[in-house]
C-alpha cells in the first residue's frame, strides 16, 4: 500500500500516491462515468494512510484541466480527511495547479481553499 500509480486515461487523471514519501499527486482530466468507483479506492487508501498517525508532512498536488461535479465531490472527500489530519497537527500542503488564464480551474481552487483552515492551500499558476 506504499504507492498507488495509475496511468492517465481520457476520462481519469494520472494518480501518483507515494505514501512512503507523503507525496500524493493527481494530474490530467477527471470525468469518469462512475466517479465514486474511481475515487473510492483512493479515499480508502488515504484514510488508511492517515490512520497510521504519523507526523510526516503530506503534500497533495492537484493539477486538473477539467473535472466534473462528481469528481469535485470526490476531491472534496479526499480533502476532508487531510484537513482533519492538519487540524490534528500534521503538516499538510495542498497545491492546486491551474494553467495561466484558466479562470474556471482557478476559481474552483479558490472555492476549495475556503474549506481549509488548518491545511496549507497553495494556488500554483502554471505557464505552458
Amino acid at each position: 500500500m506504499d504507492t498507488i500509480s495509475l496511468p492517465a486515461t481520457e476520462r481519469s487523471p494520472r494518480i501518483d500516491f507515494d505514501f512512503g514519501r507523503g507525496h500524493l499527486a493527481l494530474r490530467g482530466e477527471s470525468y469518469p462515468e462512475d466517479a465514486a468507483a474511481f475515487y473510492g479506492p483512493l479515499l480508502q487508501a488515504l484514510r488508511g494512510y492517515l490512520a497510521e498517525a504519523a507526523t510526516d508532512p503530506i503534500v497533495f498536488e492537484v493539477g486538473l484541466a477539467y473535472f466534473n461535479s462528481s469528481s469535485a465531490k470526490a476531491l472534496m472527500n479526499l480533502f476532508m480527511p487531510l484537513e482533519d489530519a492538519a487540524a490534528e497537527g500534521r503538516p499538510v500542503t495542498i497545491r492546486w495547479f491551474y494553467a495561466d488564464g484558466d479562470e474556471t480551474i482557478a476559481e474552483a481552487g479558490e472555492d476549495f481553499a475556503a474549506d481549509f483552515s488548518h491545511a496549507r492551500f497553495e494556488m500554483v499558476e502554471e505557464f505552458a
Partner: protein
Amino acid sequence: MIPEGMPSAEAAPVRRGGSLRGAGPRRSSDFLEAAGFTDMPLAESAAGPTMRPGSLRGSARGRDLDSLAHTLFLRIYPVIAVVVLVTQIGIAWVNYSDQIRLYTERAKLLAALTASAVARPDWSTRPEIYRHQVQALTLDPAFRAVVLRNAAGAVVMSLGDMPRGRSWDMVVEQADLSLPSETKPVGHLTLAISAEALRGNAEKQAILALVTSLILMLAFVLTLHANVRAHVLAPLKRLLLAMREVEHKNWVTVESGARFRASNEIDVISQAFNRMVEGLRTGDEAKRLLQELETAHAKLAEANGLVMESIGYARRIQSSVLPDRAALVSTGLEVGVLWEPLHVVGGDYFWLENIDGLGIIVVADCTGHGVPGAFLTLIVATALDRILHERRLRDPVEVLRALDSMVRVQLRQDGRGAVSDDGLDCGICIWDRQTATLRFAGAGLSLTSVTDGTVTRIRGAKNGLGYPRRAGEIFAVDEIVVQTSAETTFYLMTDGITDQMGGERRRLLGHRGVADILMARSHDGLGDQVAALQQALADYRGSEARRDDMTLVAFRPIPQSLPA
C-alpha cells in the same frame, strides 16, 4: 529378377486417379491415392501437430505403394541389367577366344614338333623309329587323335578317332613332313586335341558372369529402394500428409529428418512448406479473429441499438417532463433555452412556470449525466412540483432549502452510511412583473447578467443541494434581489456550458468566454442568441468531445410589459 515386395508393373496395377489429360488438376488426395498413400492412418498425424520423421515408416513398409520407386526401378533396371550382361558376355568372349588361340597354337606346336621328329626319307616304311614319339602325344590329357599320312595321302599310322568335319569340341591342326632334300612334303601329320575343358571353362565363366550380374543388380535394386524410401519417399510422404492436413485447415508442419541440409532439395521444400503453412496459419488466424470481431461487433451493435432505442424512449419521457418554452410569455419575459444532454438524456433540468403572475425559472444540474442523471431530474421535478404547488413556496431561498431536504430524504442521505452521494447544483429566479424585480438564490450555480456590454455574475452558495452532510452542516444561502430593465439579459447556465475544453491553448472556456460570446450577440433575439452560442461552443471545442450536459436559460423582460 525383382525382389520380393517389389512387384512388377503387371503385378501392381496402380489406379491412375487422374491422368494428366482430360481429368483436370489433381487434388493432393488424388495424388496420395495414386501414389498409394491412401491407407495412411490418420491417427499418426493426430498424435501431434508435427509429423515426426520416421513416424510413417512402419505403415509404409512392405506395401506395394511406391509407384515413384517402381517407375524409377523399371526405367533404370533394364538398362543396368543389359549393360552388366553385355559387359560380362564380352569379357567371357574375349577370354574364350584367347583360350582357343592358345589351344590352337599348342596344337600347331605339338604337330610341328612331332612332324619334324618323324620326318626322314624312308619314314613311312619304318614306323617303329618314331612310334614312341607319336605315342607320347597321347600323354597330353587334351589329346584325341593323330593321323600320319604319306605324300600320296594313305594313312601310315593312326592313333585315336579322328573326327570328321568341323567340331566345336576339337582343335585340329596339320603339319607337313618336310625334308630339306625334297621340295614337296613327304607326308602330313594331323593332330586333334579336345577343347571340351575350354568350353566347360567358358560355360562356368558365363554362369559366373550371370550370377555376378544378378547379385550386382539385386544389390543395386535393394540399395536404391532403401535409399529412395529413406531419403525421398518418406519425406515426401510426410509432406503429402501434412498437405492433406493443411487442406483441412489443420496447420501441421513437417520436420526434416535429422539436421537441415540446404543442399537437400526435399529439406528445402519442407522448409518452404513450413513457411507457407506458417503464413497460411497466420492469415487464417487473422481471418478467424476478424470474423470473431465482426460477430462481436454485430452483437454489440445490436445491444447498443437496443440500449439506444430504450434511451430514446427515455428521452421522450424526460422531454415531456420539461416545461413549455413559451410558458413565461404571459409573465412578460422573453425566454431562450438551450437544453442539450450529452447522451440523449441527462442530468440537466429546467423549470419555467407562471404561477400567480410570478415567473418561476429554475435550472438544475444533477450529478452525473445520461440515465443516472435523468433519474435525479425526475426526483427534482417531483420535488419542485410539490414545493411550488402543494407547499406554495415563493421565496427562492425557501424553495432551495425545501428542495435540498426533499432530495436528501428521497435519496436517503440523512442516515449514516448513505449509499447515494448525489445531489444537484441549482439556481432559481422568481420574476415579479409588477415590481420588475428578480429574486435569485443559487446553490452551486450563478446568475449571469449582461447589460450594455458589462457582465455581472452573481454567485450563489458554493455547495449544491443534496449530498450527505456532515453533522451540523446546514444549507445556507442569501437571496439576491435584482432590479431589472429591458436592457438586461439574464442567464442561468449549468457548468456544462462553461466547461468547454478546446481553443488554441486547450483550456476551459469558462464564464468569461461564454459571457464574451453572449455579449457579442446581446441585441439579438434570445432564440438567435442561444443558437449562436451553441455554434460558438462547437467551434471552440473543435475536435474535443463535449464533457457534460448543457443547459442555458436566457431571459429578459419584454419592454412593453415593464411598469411605466
